[in-house]
């Protein structure tokens, strides 16, 4: 696995910051926006030029910030995978929703009014970053991109897993990338679901989310080709559902979130009592947190396993959030850790569940459920399980 987020570049850097309980959300420095005076974000400190250097990409024509982030995370994910055997069919499935925005918002006026920035025209497209990542990592098999808003990367991991189960691929690089954009900051701000402080998921006084950016990828392999010493975990369950309720809101009864979790549990053949930790979607927004908490209560009863949202650490990285949180879920398995839900004080009205507020160490963690919910009522749950070899 590989990751870059506002917590840092690389799995170890991210783990260190999580262990220190130190957030990556702070003032906006790179993105040019009037909102930098009002809002914070989980912005990655590197400038585009610095990212370009880290990525080691030679051909930077038409490049986008999200593609740079994606290449960096993908290369880390692939450093242990053996790509020398051409008989191993390798694909890439990436989730992204905001990535294309960064170049559109920078260059739209140029595209419309003059010919100076034409090299960026083809980057205003959701498949662009995926094709750059494929080029830079040498993946030449199946390639696709999923855009279901904030569940995009979780859906990419689910689809990749299914393609392996169907024998269509032996190995897939799956995850997502999204870069901070003016469009997303203003969009969520216009919907009045952005907190001016660091978000407080599941808290009674939550005021919204912080936008973040980042990329993360997993190398998912079939049992046949996986090298034992490289196995980090098993993807044991996945499930998707749709609210069929509203283009941006979740149903207030938690029915849709519960269905995604139930679908994942059903696929994994695990019981609710087997889940040791839930990495919640927990954006900090009024509607989404309530719906998720009701869904948790619906599936797990009044005493769900410890759960927390890591979004106060990273901000909500939108299309890539499911991939970042997949990495955090795997870190929880590997290190027997439960990450704290920062800034939680009081329970929400109407639902009695409350998240873990302190780091929990040395608890045996065998199965982690990770939730991702997106605009359009698109809900996805994934289950990661420890493999005993």
């Amino acid at each position, binding site marked *: 696995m590989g990751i870059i987020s506002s917590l840092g570049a690389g799995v170890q850097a991210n783990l260190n910051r999580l262990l220190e309980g130190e957030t990556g959300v702070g003032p906006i420095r790179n993105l040019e926006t009037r909102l930098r005076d009002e809002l914070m974000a989980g912005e990655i400190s590197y400038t585009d030029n610095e990212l370009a250097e880290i990525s080691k990409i030679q051909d930077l024509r038409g490049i986008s910030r999200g593609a740079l982030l994606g290449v960096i995370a993908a290369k880390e994910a692939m450093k242990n995978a053996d790509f020398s055997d051409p008989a191993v069919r390798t694909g890439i499935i990436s989730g992204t929703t905001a990535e294309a925005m960064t170049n559109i918002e920078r260059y739209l006026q140029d595209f419309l009014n003059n010919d100076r920035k034409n090299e960026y025209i083809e980057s205003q497209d959701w498949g662009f970053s995926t*094709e750059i990542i494929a080029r830079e990592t040498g993946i030449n098999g199946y390639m696709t991109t999923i855009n279901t808003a904030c569940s995009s990367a979780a859906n990419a991991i689910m689809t990749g897993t299914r393609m392996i189960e169907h024998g269509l691929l032996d190995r897939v690089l799956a995850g997502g990338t999204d870069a901070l954009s003016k469009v997303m900051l203003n969009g969520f701000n*216009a919907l009045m679901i952005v907190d001016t402080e660091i978000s407080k998921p599941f808290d009674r006084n939550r005021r919204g989310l912080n936008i973040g950016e980042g990329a993360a990828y997993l190398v998912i392999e079939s049992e046949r080709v996986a090298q034992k010493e490289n196995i980090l975990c098993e993807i044991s369950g996945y499930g*998707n559902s749709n609210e069929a309720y509203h283009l941006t809101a979740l149903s207030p009864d938690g029915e849709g979130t519960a269905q995604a979790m139930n679908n994942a549990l059903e696929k994994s053949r695990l019981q609710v009592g087997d889940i040791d930790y839930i990495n919640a979607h927990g954006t900090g927004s009024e509607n989404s947190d309530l719906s998720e908490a009701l869904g948790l209560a619906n599936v797990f009863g009044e005493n769900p396993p410890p759960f927390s949202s890591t979004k106060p650490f990273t901000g909500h990285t939108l299309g890539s959030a499911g991939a970042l949180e997949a990495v955090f879920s795997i870190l929880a398995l590997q290190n027997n850790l439960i990450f704290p839900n920062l800034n939680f004080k009081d329970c929400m009205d109407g639902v009695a569940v409350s998240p873990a507020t302190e780091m929990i160490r040395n608890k045996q963690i065998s199965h982690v459920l990770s939730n991702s919910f997106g605009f359009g009522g698109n809900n996805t749950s994934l289950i990661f399980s420890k493999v005993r070899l």
Partner: protein
Amino acid sequence: MIYINGTASISPQPTLKKEEFLTEIREYRANMLQCIEPDYHEFLHPNALRRLNRIIKLGWAGAKLCLDDAQLKVPDSICVGTGKGCFKSTEIFLLSVDDNKEQFIPPSPFIQSAHGSIAAQIAIQTGCKDYNMTYAHRSFSFESALIDALMLLKEGKYTNVLLGGVDEIEETQFKTFERAGHYKEPEVNNLQLPETKSAGTIAGEGSAFFLLENQPNNNTYAAVKSVHTFSNPPDASSVRQQIFYFLEQGNLAVKDIDLIILGLNGDVQFDPVYADLSGTIFKEQPQAYYKHLCGEYHTSTAFALWLAANIMRRKEIPDAIRLNDRPPDKLRNILIYNQYRNVNHSLTLITGAG
């Protein structure tokens, strides 16, 4: 086998009435072909009609026409491919962010700017609360949705999948990509597309939907046999190799292909591979093309699949799409081959349902 038990197409041609199969062909003298749209009052409540953007309406109308054809109210699951999705709403929102200097911006274009809102609206209209997926990868968008749909039906959890390919073209995107040399200048006649011999193609759009099921019924058009995608082949010979390999996997040879539908789009930079295939391996097979009817767009293969499914059911090839005059002796297997700027290549094979 996975069966196509319902189809619908909204396209720049008169394709809304299912009784008429390309009996009338629309000629354009513009390089941007837009759909002949239905009266959306038949599909949406006046409030929704006012609120929703054009591509969400195109998507829902296509989906509804397909469900009507299949006589189904609620699908079990939904898979949509859309290359550009709701780009227009993104652009409207972005211009308003700039115009308003990032203050007091109306959020409604933002709400409708997500790619997934096309499939989400179908879920809202039908009440389908289960699997809902949106693929957005250039000219792999529809193929990815189709591959997912085939997996879903094999997994057995759902009895049917509503599958669609939806994209729109509008002025800004047209002008932008015209600058990048994707479209022809000056204007051409769409019906003379293969003879234009110049760089660029013509832009198009469409909304085509299919109801896929594990079982055939009395509305079955055809069966989807297999789909394959590949990227960046170095030359025409490696494309031929991919086709041989693909057919071999289905225990077929080139001679078993009763009709090859090619995605040629009149762009001299990228069409040579089609000429190679027409002149070599498919020389003896009946050949067809379709982008002169619908234009080039990321999910044009959804229109091609609609064509293939209807050809299979009617056992007739409309004159307007014939590339050679070789008549088929039978119509058992139809292969669609498309490529987009030599990056995204795809093969889709359908077969008779009998």
